[in-house]
């Protein structure tokens, strides 16, 4: 049954093949080790924080003695800031992507915008924080120094290029035959955009947006000089606010074992939220690809 007519592969070549395939497999396993270790430590150290009473329902006390409190204000603060950043960046981002694919196309203006958006993806995230600091924080814009909404602006600056790039890719995938068919039937451009292009690209846009949100959620650097920090819970976006990444960042260097445990618990919470966003995004992407 086996191809006896073919010349035998020499033992040396077969050995090389085996060894190299083994090495590639080994490298893949090595690649997975960090993830496994990180997840192990997050669960191992984070769960003991989760099981502390009031971890999710109380705010950090800041008290030198006794319980360091929970992380409620950090979770809600992160959600508030990222929600605002989403509300700013997603519509603008999709709008710009629509301009690029539907109107600008390959014109000089569209290509300039494209180029600058590309450049923006390469800007280290801390620079957005500095930018917002000099533009909004120093001048006490809106009557506050550090404020949650200023952090949201910094985060949205970081999310914008991600949303624009991924939306453009998805919008380009909408077959032009669909647009042409609708236009040929006499549909106006804006109806084509809203009734044909956007619905078709919907799942892809959602995927890109969710990935951008997940990214914004985990960012620390843009918050350092825009939101600063707080212990208590506040819903006023014009105030300093607690956030999960900042809480972890501050607690990492704490020598207090209790605060380090809080940092691990917060990290576990943050990773769970970000992973869920990622998995949902991938799920939507894979379903729409199959459809």
């Amino acid at each position, binding site marked *: 049954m086996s191809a006896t007519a073919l010349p035998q592969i020499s033992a040396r070549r077969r050995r*090389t*093949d085996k060894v190299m395939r083994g*090495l*590639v497999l080994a*490298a893949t396993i090595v*690649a997975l080790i*960090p*993830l496994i*270790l*990180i997840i192990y430590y*997050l669960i191992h150290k984070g769960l003991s924080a989760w099981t502390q009473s009031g971890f999710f329902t109380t705010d950090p006390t800041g008290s030198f003695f006794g319980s360091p409190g929970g992380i409620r204000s950090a979770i809600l603060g992160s959600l508030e800031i990222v929600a605002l950043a989403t509300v700013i960046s997603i519509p*603008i981002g999709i*709008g*710009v992507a*629509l*301009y690029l694919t539907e109107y600008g196309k390959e014109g000089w203006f569209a290509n300039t915008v494209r180029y600058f958006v*590309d*450049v*923006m*993806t*390469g*800007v*280290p995230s*801390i*620079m957005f924080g*500095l930018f917002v600091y000099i533009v909004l924080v120093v001048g006490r814009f809106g009557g506050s120094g550090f404020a949650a909404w200023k952090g949201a602006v910094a985060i949205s600056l970081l999310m914008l290029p*991600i949303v624009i*790039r*991924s939306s453009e*890719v*998805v919008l380009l*995938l909408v077959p032009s035959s669909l647009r042409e*068919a609708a236009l040929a*039937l*006499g549909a*106006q*451009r*804006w*109806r*084509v955009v809203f*009734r044909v292009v956007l619905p078709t690209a919907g799942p892809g846009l959602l995927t*890109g947006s969710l*990935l*951008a949100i997940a*990214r914004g*959620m*985990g*960012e*620390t*650097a*843009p918050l*350092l000089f825009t939101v600063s920090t707080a212990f208590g819970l506040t819903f006023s976006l014009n105030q300093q606010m607690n956030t999960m*990444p900042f809480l972890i*960042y501050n607690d*990492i260097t704490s020598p207090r074992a209790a605060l380090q445990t809080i940092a691990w618990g917060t*990290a576990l919470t943050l*990773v769970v939220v*970000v992973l869920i966003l*990622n998995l949902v995004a*991938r799920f939507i992407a894979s379903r729409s690809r199959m459809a």
Partner: protein
Amino acid sequence: MEASATSVTGGRSALERSPAGRLPDRVLKWGLSALAALILILIIYFFIRLVGQSGHVFSTYGISFVFGNDWDVSRSIYHGGALLFGTIVTSIIALIIGVPIAVATAVFITELCPRRLRGSLSIVVDLLAAVPSVVYGLWGVFVLAPRLLPAEKWFASTFSFIPWIGGGIPTLYNYFIAGLILAIMILPIVSAISREVIATVPSENKEAALALGATRWEMIGMAVIPYSRSGIIGGAMLGMGRAIGETIAVVLVIGSAPKIGSHLFAQGYTLAAVIANEFGEATGIHTSALFAAGLVLFVLTLIVNMIARWFITRGSHGTRGTGATGMTIASGPAGEK
């Protein structure tokens, strides 16, 4: 389908649409154009402010700000050479460790692994990108740095004959630890792009190699790697771009010493880390110096990213980049840069 159904009800041809009927079209067109213009203005304003803020330090030090080696806040002297050195060294360490593993992972997933494992394995590797960088920092500070210190000490004394690598006394936080964490952080992006590129290798090429009696490995070596080489290099450069700009994970494990370390396991500093650490307390020329550090960092990332894109476009063999690669480049790891 439904779109056409609704729009036809007007019964007019597109050529003779009344001005009022065309209003929404115009609003949309000009609205979106305005949005695009707004983005452009915003980005340009961003750079004007950035350059404006760093002007002070560049007019004082000129180019020696970038390459000079003396960063001393107490004497108000700002030459960022040691920071540039740290940034480049840590990202090169990240490349040396991360890229071979990432490429091997990509080869395994696309060529060797059983088909039904493929999807889930790629998702697992991609998940590394979803871990926020502050979490990498947390893990680095409490797990990696203290656990690896004995191994680093052994390594440094055993290989003391290798210049710069061995010989020194490792500190808890150092270039190597920072580079190692960066390697983990760039792994998913390099791997994802390599996968994309390897997937574009025409199956005829691979089948031809196999038909000639090549083993799997020989096929990979003859058909897959040469074909996707420039794409992989592009992916590696893109990973380097990320490593250069990474702030929070690095600032926690680099040791924050603004001097050129004498060995691999010495503490150092990077451009991004110095901004995060010192910006809060900076006034006057110090602030300007940090903005200038940001500018240098940005120019560096820009160059690296452009090289990366050039390689990737060249490597995609005229297909103008697959959609998924575009998505990967755009979204990138969830960790911050």
